């Protein structure tokens, strides 16, 4: 009994903490990095007062948020108002369960990993909708409505992009998808090359799905103040913030896994395994490669934010329904032909 308790309850809990705690730290550092990068792009300094180079700014902000009062608006729905941030956060954290960090480092090697991810990401929108409705505020409700319409539209495009990946890899398991991108041609064996338009669509849809600029109509500071979280303060607001940033990092990891070969090295097959020392290490895969790729992808989020003005509502809908979805549907057929005529080499994994 005690044995089982340790094996079936305690170890999974420790593994979960091993993912969630670094994720929360990563979110804090990502917020700092975002403010720094956008500062540089605006030719200013960014945060530089708290800690060396301002690196503790994010933690100072967290402490500030935690000790602020959480205000309940009049006539707001008390139960749903406090439930909404949690409903938003739980799927954002739960989705990390199926992410393979390297060949062996994965919490749950589920067979239907992609379906699980789709299920989790599609549930995140409930937090936003419920927050918008329960706040008893017009701006919040408008933000929630916009967000619901946007997330549903872009989810379709994202799903179709994943269909292309599934067709090529022949599996719904994330580890097998990464292994299918192994081969002797280095980074040209990854799926970004045969699925280039789909890669672009997937990442842009991911930006839209996480309500980031230039798709942040749900917040839209200049039109509806702050959208769905306008009434939230203190730690409740911090939870929304955490969920949004955890989702951004998740989309970066997923793009790296689906299209950029996950933990595989970009030099795979070009460097023989018996080369001396660190040179052979460059050719071998490892979680460090996944982190580098995800870091680059997450940098695009910040770059987009500093570069593009916000889309109008009708422009977002048009881009999703009339541009992305048709291209993604067409590429499903292209991927099918590529697979049928064996034009893409599919690795079997190490």
């Amino acid at each position, binding site marked *: 009994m005690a044995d089982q308790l340790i094996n079936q309850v305690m170890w999974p809990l420790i593994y979960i903490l091993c993912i969630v705690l670094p994720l929360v730290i990563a979110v804090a550092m990502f917020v700092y990095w975002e403010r720094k990068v956008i500062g540089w792009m605006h030719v200013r300094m960014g945060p530089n007062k708290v800690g060396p180079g301002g690196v503790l700014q994010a933690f100072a902000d967290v402490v500030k948020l935690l000790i602020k009062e959480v205000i309940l608006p009049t006539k707001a729905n008390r139960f749903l108002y406090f439930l909404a941030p949690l409903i938003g956060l739980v799927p954002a954290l739960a989705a990390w369960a199926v992410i393979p960090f390297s060949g062996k480092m994965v919490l749950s090697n589920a067979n*239907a990993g992609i379906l699980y991810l789709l299920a989790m990401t599609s*549930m995140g929108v409930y937090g936003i*909708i419920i927050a918008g*409705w329960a706040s008893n505020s017009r701006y919040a409700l408008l933000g929630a409505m916009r967000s*619901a*319409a946007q*997330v*549903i539209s872009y989810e379709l495009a994202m799903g179709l992009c994943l269909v292309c990946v599934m067709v090529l890899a022949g599996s719904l398991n994330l580890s097998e998808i990464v292994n299918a991108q192994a081969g002797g041609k280095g980074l040209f064996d990854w799926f970004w090359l045969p699925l280039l338009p789909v890669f672009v669509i997937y990442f842009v849809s991911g930006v839209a799905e996480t309500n980031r600029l230039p798709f942040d109509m749900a917040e839209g500071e200049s039109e509806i103040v702050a959208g769905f979280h306008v009434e939230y303060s203190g730690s409740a607001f911090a939870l929304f913030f955490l969920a949004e940033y955890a989702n951004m990092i998740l989309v970066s990891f997923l793009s790296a896994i689906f299209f950029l070969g996950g933990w595989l090295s970009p030099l795979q097959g070009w460097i023989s395994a018996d080369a001396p020392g660190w040179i052979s290490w460059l050719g071998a895969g490892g979680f460090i490669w996944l982190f580098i790729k995800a870091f680059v992808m997450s940098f695009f989020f910040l770059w987009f934010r500093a570069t593009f003005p916000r889309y109008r509502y*009708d422009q977002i809908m048009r881009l999703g329904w009339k541009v992305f979805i048709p291209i993604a549907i067409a590429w499903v057929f292209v991927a099918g032909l590529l697979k049928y005529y064996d034009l893409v080499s599919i690795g079997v994994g190490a």
Partner: protein
Amino acid sequence: MNPQTLQIICFYAFSLVTVAAALSVITLKNTVHAVLALVLTFFSAACLWMLLDAEFLALALVVVYVGAVMVLFLFVVMMLDIDLEKMHEGFVKFLPVGVIVAIVMLVEMLGLIGVWAMHARDLGADPAAVAGMSNTAWLGQALYTKFLLPFEVAALVLTVGLVAAVALTLRERRGARYESASRQVRVDPRDRVRIVKMDAVRPTPAAADEGTAGESKP
């Protein structure tokens, strides 16, 4: 604790939540709460399917119903202005009808189970486990080989439904304003703004007094 006992405990826990949530869908006074209870019903039904190793069905239920259909439903219900008291008046009035429908359904279900038991139909072992692959892979292969025709017919029926829904609700409105994206892109700045080159000359005081341009006056 062996896995089977745990499975049974999970089954009863999930079914309890499912039934309780389904009951609260029809008894809760607030419509938004009722919709959220329906979401919970779907979710715990998906958990039940997951217990049966039907992972594809369970996740598809969450993706399609919880993730898309119910979001739109919630969207609509939030916009409705419903008089809750009036809605609740009908509850007692229509209760007998509801009870009769429920009893008929129960009898039908019991009959079905009875017929099933009489024929002693054995479902056999899980075909996916027999074939040695995951439930999702087996389902995919069965759908696209053995059941291809019914699958395609179902897809066709759904497409017809989609087209019909669009055809029923699409109507041309007069005077509706919209932006044509291709027209916006094709706009030439020269059609909108005229740039006039002028020499930087200082007009003589006499000419300024006569003033061809009256708006320069303060």
